[in-house]
């Protein structure tokens, strides 16, 4: 469906990748760790390697959680936009198929959040 308007209605998306000055958005959800109240929204360089993304962005973002030291993110189970995904630490994000506003979900088996409450 489309907007029911009094005249022709045209709109531009506000969050096109061109508006991010060479960067792109990446969202990361760490299930069973809902102490972080929502998935993270990160600003990333598309040519950043996956390994650098984990070390330089994901680990600091997750650092406030007691499980973070035990989390082995690179060897965890990953989903990219809902599909199974095997990360290559040496590949760039964009070459890994991670485009603007993609969503990564990383499950760390055995880590169930604070006192096992998925927090």
């Amino acid at each position, binding site marked *: *469906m*489309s*907007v*029911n*308007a*009094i005249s022709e*209605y*045209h*709109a*531009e*998306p*506000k*969050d*096109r990748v061109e*508006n*991010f*000055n060479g*960067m792109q*958005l990446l*969202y990361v*959800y760490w*299930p*069973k760790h*809902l*102490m*972080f*109240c*929502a*998935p*993270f*929204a*990160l*600003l990333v360089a598309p040519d950043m390697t996956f390994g650098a993304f984990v070390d330089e962005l994901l680990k*600091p*973002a997750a650092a*406030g959680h*007691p499980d973070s030291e035990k989390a082995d993110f690179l060897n965890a189970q990953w989903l990219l*936009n*809902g599909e199974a995904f095997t990360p290559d630490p040496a590949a760039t994000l964009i070459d890994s198929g991670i*485009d*603007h*506003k*993609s*969503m990564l979900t990383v499950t760390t088996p055995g880590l169930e*959040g*604070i*006192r*096992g*409450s*998925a*927090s």
Partner: protein
Amino acid sequence: MAIKNKKLNLKDKYQYLTRDMAWEPTYQKKEDIYPDEQFEGIKITDWSQWEDPFRLTMDAYWKYQAEKEKKLYAIFDAFAQNNGHQNITDARYVNALKLFLSGVSPLEYAAFQGYARVGRQFSGAGARVACQLQAIDELRHSQTQQHAMSHYNKHFNGLHDAAHQHDRIWFLSVPKSFFDDARSAGPFEFLTAISFSFEYVLTNLLFVPFMSGAAYNGDMATVTFGFSAQSDEARHMTLGLEVIKFILEQHEDNVPIIQRWIDKWFWRGFRLLSLVGMMMDYMLPNKVMSWAEAWEVYYEQNGGALFKDLERYGIRPPKYQDVANAAKNHVSHQAWGTFYQYSQATNFHTWMPEEEEMTWLSEKYPETFDKYYRARFEHWDKEQKEGRRFYNNTLPQLCQVCQIPVIFTEKDDPSVFSHRQIKHEGERYHFCSDGCCDIFKNEPEKYIQAWLPVHQIYQGNCGGADVATVVEKYYHINLGVDNMEYHGSPDHQRWLDIKGLKPLQSNSEKKTAA
């Protein structure tokens, strides 16, 4: 001319001062005079069927409201002279006022603008007059709320720039975008959104909690505002129901359109009320009732009766009502956890509940609080007491429609976020729920333009690249004075001084605000 009876009866007066002020145009086409009335597809066959149950006219309105306002301001004066702020239960309560002043009072102003517009756009004189009077109500409410709370601005931090903050602070885009969505719709959708879904179905969940909250916590200024606005709210609610019945009775083609709007605006309203839920359960030192109890009384029971009544028009209860009903046991905890961890970017303080409050939450939420939320709250409490107060330093993913971070969980599994995503014309979009995703799919062009605060910060449109710069320069929040942890804050310190309690053993004194 001889006048037989100087005093007109109510019915005649209403006729003279509303319907008789209108006329049938002869040298302009009606469609040209009221161009916004057609495009939504709503069919009105006979505007004279419009009934105003209050038969309100401008002369009576003026007189009555002036009387009320005179009394209201006398009480505000007395409150200020008697240092009424010293009689509240606890300074934590003032944070509920900061939320109200920056989140709700600007909505009253937005409602004023909306009703002033639709008060011009309907070709029926009765509807125009009712909307014009409501526009004045909304303007008065915005104004009197600000006056009721201005006394607190002299004694506590964070109340200094609510209107500016409403347009900029990340979470205030939630109420702001709600009203922008309604005001940018056609006149009939605006009335369905605001008069019916918001004023009639959900307003008790906004006003009763805030005004009873004020009464339970010794805030005479705000309580008095509440009493003063009560008769207006009753009129708005009645109008909301009359509006929907009128539209439904006019033509059967209106039914599916109205149903889609009810589905949309129920969901948008429900999401918006998450803010009220956390206020009730976490920000009131003396609690009125739990959010879940309020939802049961004001939505499940009252709303249930309403939708039963509307069944004969072919209207069913709103879509995803079951999701909303199940969420009553979760949303307040999820919302407070969110504000707690992003308190470096809010215009008020946050804190962890005290032990007896935790017990109250366990009792009120036997199925959910201990199982899903207590562990994280106790962890944060411990961290804070050991000097490592938790703040989340990474920005959250926002829902494209309601603009709330994607914090809500699945109805059938509260340990999983209810995240949804779709691709539209090559772009990816993310949502907090099926409810918001459906709203997007119905009118994608409207929501692809959403001004999402997190994305705007990352695009460099909010004055700086780091949180401190955005918060101080763009939001006008005094970082660490107006916001962050309550314990040890200048507000907390001032409250202890007022109550003659011993000062805190902390380094907060140097941060005492001007």
